[in-house]
């Protein structure tokens, strides 16, 4: 479970181009649920995602991870609750690698290397055996039936296929939380519905899912448990749909 207390994030503080993306946000992300951050672009959805996903540190406020053990943190198994606000980047990255899987709006796949290597990439720094990572990556590719492109270059994939490779990459480190930023921005309606089925399978696996989107297919989907509306860095309304 992820809890944010009075979190603020401002860029270039004190300078004239100061811009506060997130203002005094208090939020808790329930485990095993699908939460959607809804709001127009520029409302701080993406910045809030980076804060929750341990990618950036808040200017002020506290973020606390709790629940069944903190994966990726040395000796994290027995820790019930851990404040990660001022952790050094080395430890934030450890937790991010083990706990969070990211799916980006532009997929962010590396053009120069093969699809299989793209999927294996996040696991390189963990020091796992190469064969192990390769086997799991191949499995994920077959699950999302893009296995035939395993040794192809990324730029020859279609939009949908690239999306599924990006999802496979997000799952390589067996994360317990999936974070997606505008995942359906470049997909047509069929592929978007397909994506929501995949999100459904995440929930059935017990994973927590967090999506920032203003695509009605995502926001009004029956699988959504909580919708958080945001505008100008603040939370307007945060209610769980019936």
């Amino acid at each position, binding site marked *: 479970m992820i809890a944010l207390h009075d979190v603020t994030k401002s860029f270039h503080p004190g300078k004239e181009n100061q811009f506060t993306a997130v203002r005094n946000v208090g939020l808790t992300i329930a485990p095993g649920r699908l939460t959607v951050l809804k709001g127009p672009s520029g409302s701080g959805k*993406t*910045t809030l*995602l*980076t804060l929750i996903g341990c*990618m*950036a540190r808040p200017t002020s406020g506290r973020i606390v991870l709790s629940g069944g053990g903190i994966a990726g943190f040395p000796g994290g198994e027995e820790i019930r609750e851990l404040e990660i606000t001022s952790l050094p*980047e*080395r430890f*934030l*990255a*450890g937790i*991010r*690698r083990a706990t969070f899987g*990211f799916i*980006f709006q*532009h997929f*962010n*796949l*590396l*053009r*120069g*290397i093969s699809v299989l*290597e793209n999927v294996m*990439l*996040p*696991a*390189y*720094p*963990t*020091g*796992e*055996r*190469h064969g192990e*990572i390769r086997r799991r990556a191949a499995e994920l590719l077959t699950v999302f039936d893009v296995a035939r492109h395993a040794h192809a270059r990324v730029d020859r994939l279609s939009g949908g296929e690239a999306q599924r490779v990006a999802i496979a*990459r997000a799952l390589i*480190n067996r994360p317990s939380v999936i974070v997606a*930023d505008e995942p359906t921005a470049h997909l047509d309606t069929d592929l978007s519905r397909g994506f929501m089925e995949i999100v459904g399978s995440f929930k059935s696996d017990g994973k927590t899912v967090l999506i920032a989107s203003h695509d009605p297919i995502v926001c009004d989907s029956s699988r959504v448990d909580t919708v958080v509306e945001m505008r100008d860095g603040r939370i307007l309304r945060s209610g769980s749909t019936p």
Partner: protein
Amino acid sequence: MNRFVERHRSILDFALSSLLRRKGKNISLWVVYTLIVFLIAAIVFYTHALKREAAMILQGAPDIVVQKMVAGRQDLVPVGYVGKIAAIRGVGAVRPRLWGYYYDAVTGANYTLMAPDGSLPGPGTADIGSGVARTLRVVEGDFLPIRAVDGVPTLFQVRKVLPYASELATSDLILLSEDDLRALFAFPRGFATDLAVTVENPAERATVAAKIAAQFPESRPILNSEILRTYDSIFDWRGGMMVVMLGVAVFSFVIFAWDKATGLSAEERREIGILKSVGWETGDVLLLKFWEGAAISLAAFLCGVILAYVQVFFFSASLFEPALKGWAVLYPRFKLVPDVDPYQLAVLFFLTVVPYTVATIIPSWRAATVDPDAAMRS
């Protein structure tokens, strides 16, 4: 421990694939790097092998060579000195040496003419070094014209050509009998060029030399150790000069490497942004950059050293010949005895790999500190 090794191997994998992705830039960097290592390695190997060769061969040089100086210039030594020097305690044999230079206008080469007192070539015959044979294209039995001091060319029959292998010391020698030499150069009878004094006990040599200098103020004794030490500093001082010149080359190479490392293309910056966003942290990206540098350095260092070794010891530094030959027409062809030890490799490492590594630290760090969430926002 295994996890540590696996992490390095995986990151090395990615480093190599990112090197191969930007083939043009990295291949050019590797070629320049190998060239720099090759040049400095060749210099260090060549000077060291030559010094050892000199030390080995010149051990046979006379213990003390006594010269007579007149107004700062070397003059002929009266043979009368021999008796007086032989009388000094600790002196073994004193043998006059008769030698001089001969400029051959036809080929423009300088030869050293000498009358050895060992196995004398007979009158009218000469033993010649293989360098002389090569320059004048003469073989045993042919006739060798040498113009005497009065302009009259006298013919000498070549009795023997000195062995090719000793060319480092005897390449330009022409050995004649004493009478022929005296006739050629009109050496007066009672004089010699200098005296070779043998002193059995090495500890005694310095004191004997001091006595000679005291007894004959105008003479100049030269010790064997001083001869050997001449060659110790022959290249060191100038070898160092060459290394300083190459230092400039290394410096420009370091600037080249710095520019390559800082000039990240947009593609590379985006790539690192993605790495950071999917779970790599600054330390991992630093390691990635370290392995990229290490791969190029290792490959360049090993290839450069091997190429230099082959060039210096199998082709006897033929690349440097024009530089070393200078104005001389006659240049000895010799094969150097390889003498490379880990010490020289350590010096090479410090002069090439260390500057490169240090130059790429700050650019790699700057590249590695891209914010993880940068990829999200782009």
